[in-house]
């Protein structure tokens, strides 16, 4: 589907086997979008080639709250550059495919997150769609 900008599976596994903060969502896998939402030590592209290998030096507000609640972030989902389109076909990562029909769009800007949702993967995920759509 080409829906992950940066997989974080190894880090997620290491975090999952450790002691997680208690709470109703503790241990739930989660996907953040690769637009903003910085995670310390992990590449953040904002889906633009201009940022190169930028590595966030600290967690952003959302990531801080997610981690404090015990969620386990498993990767960063792809999107259009700066979230500019309603389809996820950025030059940086190439097209994200709709898992129900690989020749079709998964939408945008949260196309990577949507593709994972359409594929019935287990994790929850963050969205920042301009028109507030949820899928």
């Amino acid at each position, binding site marked *: 589907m080409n829906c992950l900008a940066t997989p974080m599976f190894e880090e997620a596994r290491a975090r999952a086997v450790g002691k997680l903060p208690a709470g109703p969502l503790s241990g739930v896998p989660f996907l953040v979008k690769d637009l903003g939402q910085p995670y310390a030590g992990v590449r953040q592209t*904002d889906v*633009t*080639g*201009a*940022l*190169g290998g*930028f590595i966030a030096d600290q967690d952003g507000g959302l990531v801080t709250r997610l981690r404090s609640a015990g969620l386990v972030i498993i990767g960063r989902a792809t999107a*259009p*550059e*700066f979230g*500019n*389109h*309603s*389809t996820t*076909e*950025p*030059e940086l990562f190439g*097209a994200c*495919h*709709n898992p*129900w*029909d690989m*020749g*079709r*769009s*998964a*939408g945008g800007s949260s196309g990577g997150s949507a593709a994972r949702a359409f594929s019935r993967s287990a994790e929850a995920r963050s969205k920042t769609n*301009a028109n507030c*759509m949820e*899928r």
Partner: protein
Amino acid sequence: MVTIWAVGNASDRELVESRIGRPPRHHELEITTWELIELGREVSAVEMVRAVDLLHSASRAIAPFFDSYDAWLTPTLAQPPLPLGLLNKSYGGAREWW
């Protein structure tokens, strides 16, 4: 909407420059992004405030709906998802797109 979105892209460009220590080069951004940046840099402060005011007016008109309902559900799409390559405007036309 294009006014606010374009200014957002102009702001994103500044953020990129602050992170990489130089202005982004033309080949490093998609064509539509460059168009939006250029549009955003032409927007005056007055135009931006008027655009935000207009957006807030729409918000205030919609807000009373939520006095009675917790959520407003609408179809994300009116038809099945479009083929790849049809929606992306990486080859120009930012103003047309928005």
